């Protein structure tokens, strides 16, 4: 190639390429489209060289400019077209008469009509715009056309080909020529139906939300108030609980709370108070691993436990007494209540047991009962005195009758007035009345021996002390003093006697002594009680007074029934006393005091067999 000339930029074609062209002369210029070399435009001559001149240069430049321009334009349209086709918005173009000139594929999708169906139609020609919005749309387009707006945006309702109503947002802009005449109107359209719906629902949701919020806030305020109240209550409750707890901790009664598992191995202890530990010996920790059954033992009354079980099974309150066992195995008497605890539905969730140790009370009760029996018997014997005088009266009747009949009979005989029949009758009466007297005596003895003898081993000093206790009232009444002279216990063998009866004898002797000294000046009313070992394994008890003493004949009759020196005496006390003593294998006798006035009664009892 001869002449290759390049115009324009530095870019040059490859020499080899040029050589391959088989051309004589070339004038070329790169064509720049968008700042890039698109290609080369050139004049070429196949024949030999040519000198390129200005005329060719300017022609080439102009041509390549035009060419470049055209290419650019094409590219731009292409690009634009591409975008228009692919834009997510529908792209519509209208001419000056508001007829569709462009209808993008997206518009087809949005509205349903194809481009072919709508190109050339005016918007009001078919049902594109919802009639209610037509006015607004017309207004917009007027403004565009009139030149009032360069662009505007409108949201209005449209119809689709299938008749559905959709809401679209229209972005419109107008293009005018130099004279201001409308060349075209471009519309971007977006189907905002869904969005609108979302917005509506959002609005209503928001409204709802606001309402709910308001409501919620109300509720929160309320709840807060409630909670505060509850907290206050709960504080109160906590405080009450604390107080109750402290009360439960302090009471003497043992409190045990168990779960509701009645069947073995239950029920399980869930709480015990300190009194429980004091009563049973089990600590609180130990108790929590136990069931109340451990408190029962060999001498626990099974019937009571069975009753407890029945009450638990039937959900009823239980109250009972039984023997319980402590941790160390010792026994104690317990009295206890068991009550169910129910939940809001009435179902039993726990059992509460309150226990009281009544060992002392039981012992005291038993002791009181024993004392009452003893007192009753002692009173009986001393009441026997009163009774005896009544009996004495009663005996007097038959005795008087006997006397009368017998004397009368004798008189009859004396006066020779007696007939055998008469006498027989009298004698019969005597016999009858004797019987009657006998029966009265029998009643008296029955009264005395009613209790029956209960012999046990006693220390005589103990009995003497108890006797003094029984005589408290008499000592006070008679204003006497009592002097005890008792040998120490280890010097006196125990005796096997009915303690009550011996005490009765001593009481009788003491009372006699008191009455004997009633006429003494106050400082000479001393009763002496002594207990000494006697001869031959006996115990000798002496009761001495400072009274006037007994005459020898009184001493003879002393122990006879109905013998008495008292105005209101019945004369049975010493008789009975002596028979009691003799019953025990002992002796009772009276003797004047060796020194000073008064009498001593000596009571001898055999020692118990070792």
């Amino acid at each position, binding site marked *: 190639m001869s002449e290759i000339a390049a115009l324009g930029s530095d870019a040059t074609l490859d020499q080899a390429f040029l050589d391959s062209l088989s051309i004589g002369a070339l004038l070329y210029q790169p064509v720049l489209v968008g700042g890039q070399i698109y290609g080369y435009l050139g004049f070429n001559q196949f024949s030999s060289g040519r000198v390129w001149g200005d005329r060719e240069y300017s022609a080439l430049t102009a041509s390549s400019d035009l060419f470049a321009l055209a290419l650019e334009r094409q590219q731009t349209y292409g690009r634009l077209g591409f975008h228009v086709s692919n834009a997510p918005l529908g792209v519509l173009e209208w001419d000056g008469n508001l007829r569709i000139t462009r209808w993008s594929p997206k518009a087809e999708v949005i509205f349903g009509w194809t481009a072919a169906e709508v190109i050339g139609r005016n918007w009001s020609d078919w049902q594109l715009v919802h009639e209610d919005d037509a006015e607004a749309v017309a207004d917009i387009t007027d403004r565009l056309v009139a030149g009032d707006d360069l662009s505007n945006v409108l949201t209005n309702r449209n119809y689709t080909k299938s008749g559905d109503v959709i809401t679209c947002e229209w972005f419109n802009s107008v293009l005018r020529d130099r004279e201001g005449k409308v060349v075209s109107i471009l519309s971007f359209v977006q189907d905002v139906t869904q969005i609108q719906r979302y917005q509506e629902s959002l609005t209503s949701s928001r409204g709802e939300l606001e309402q709910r919020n308001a409501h919620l806030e109300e509720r929160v305020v309320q709840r807060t108030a409630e909670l505060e109240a509850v907290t206050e209550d709960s504080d109160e409750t906590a405080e009450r609980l604390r107080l109750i707890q402290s009360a439960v901790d302090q009471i003497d009664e043992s409190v045990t709370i168990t779960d509701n598992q009645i069947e073995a191995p239950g029920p399980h202890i869930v709480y015990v108070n300190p009194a429980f530990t004091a009563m049973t010996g089990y600590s609180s920790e130990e108790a929590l691993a136990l069931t109340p059954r451990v408190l029962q033992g060999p001498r626990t009354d099974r019937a009571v436990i069975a009753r407890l079980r029945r009450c638990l099974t039937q959900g009823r309150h239980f109250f009972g007494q039984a023997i319980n066992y402590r941790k160390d195995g010792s026994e104690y008497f317990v009295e206890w209540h068991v009550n169910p605890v129910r939940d809001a539905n009435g179902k039993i969730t726990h059992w509460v047991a309150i226990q009281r140790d009544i060992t002392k009370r039981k012992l005291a009760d038993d002791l009181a009962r024993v004392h009452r029996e003893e007192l009753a018997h002692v009173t009986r014997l001393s009441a026997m005195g009163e009774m005896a005088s009544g009996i004495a*009266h009663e005996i*007097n*009747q038959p005795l*008087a009758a006997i006397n*009368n009949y017998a*004397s*009368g009979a004798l*008189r009859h005989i004396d*006066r020779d007035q007696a007939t055998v029949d008469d006498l027989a009758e009298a004698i019969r*009466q005597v016999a009858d009345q004797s019987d009657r007297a006998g029966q009265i005596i029998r009643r008296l003895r029955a009264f005395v021996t009613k209790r029956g003898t209960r012999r046990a081993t006693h220390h005589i000093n103990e009995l003497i002390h108890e006797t003094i206790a029984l005589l408290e009232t008499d000592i006070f009444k008679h204003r006497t003093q009592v002097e005890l002279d008792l040998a120490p216990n280890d010097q006196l063998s125990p005796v096997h006697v009915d303690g009550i009866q011996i005490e009765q004898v001593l009481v009788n002797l003491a009372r006699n002594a008191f009455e004997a000294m009633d006429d003494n000046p106050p400082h000479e009313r001393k009763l002496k009680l002594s207990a000494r070992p006697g001869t031959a394994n006996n115990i000798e008890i002496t009761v001495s007074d400072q009274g006037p003493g007994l005459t020898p004949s009184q001493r003879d009759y002393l122990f006879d029934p109905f013998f008495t020196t008292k105005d209101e005496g019945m004369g049975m006390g010493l008789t009975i006393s002596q028979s009691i003593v003799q019953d025990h294998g002992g002796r009772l006798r009276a003797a004047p005091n060796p020194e000073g006035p008064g009498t001593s009664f000596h009571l001898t009892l055999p020692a118990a067999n070792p």
Partner: protein
Amino acid sequence: MFTANTVFVVDDDPAVRDSLKYLIESAGHRVEAFENARSMIDRVRVPAGRPVSGCLVADVRLPGMSGLDMFDRLQEMDAQLPTVVITGHGDVTAAVRAMKAGAVDFIEKPFTDQALLDRINTALEINSVNRTAAEEVAKVEKRHDMLTPRERQVMAAVVDGRLNKQIAADLGLSHKTIEVHRAHVMEKMAARSLAELVRMAVLLEQKCAA
């Protein structure tokens, strides 16, 4: 009205009651026995002025009518029944009560037959004496009733110690008249002496006062 001496016995014990009856009868007395004071009182109803002939043996413990009531009733009836009360051994209170109420004696159980019979005799004696005295008074009364009013006046004055002439002056009668009245009085009253007359007057006075 009992002409013979009767010993009344009151005792609630049948054996004692019957045996007492037997005993007292054996001593020769007539006996009527009662269970209680009421039945005895009913039996012993006395017309006024006629004392009962006999005595009463009663046990101090009387059911129904109390001992005191019994005595009161007897008093009302003017029965003049001397009573021996049987008391219990050593019952001093009862004995004192009985004596104060008017018993003539008491006896304690148990008693010997002789002790009782002795007391019954004493009581009967007293009864007899009383009866005699009462009869005597009745007689005097009767005689006094026979006096004329004037004679009574004179008797009253004589017994008062007035001399005849004083009486004559008091009554406005002559001395002689008074002497005549006086003689009549002595005769009708069967008084052998002034002293006797005075005694009779005293008796009458006592009777009125009672």
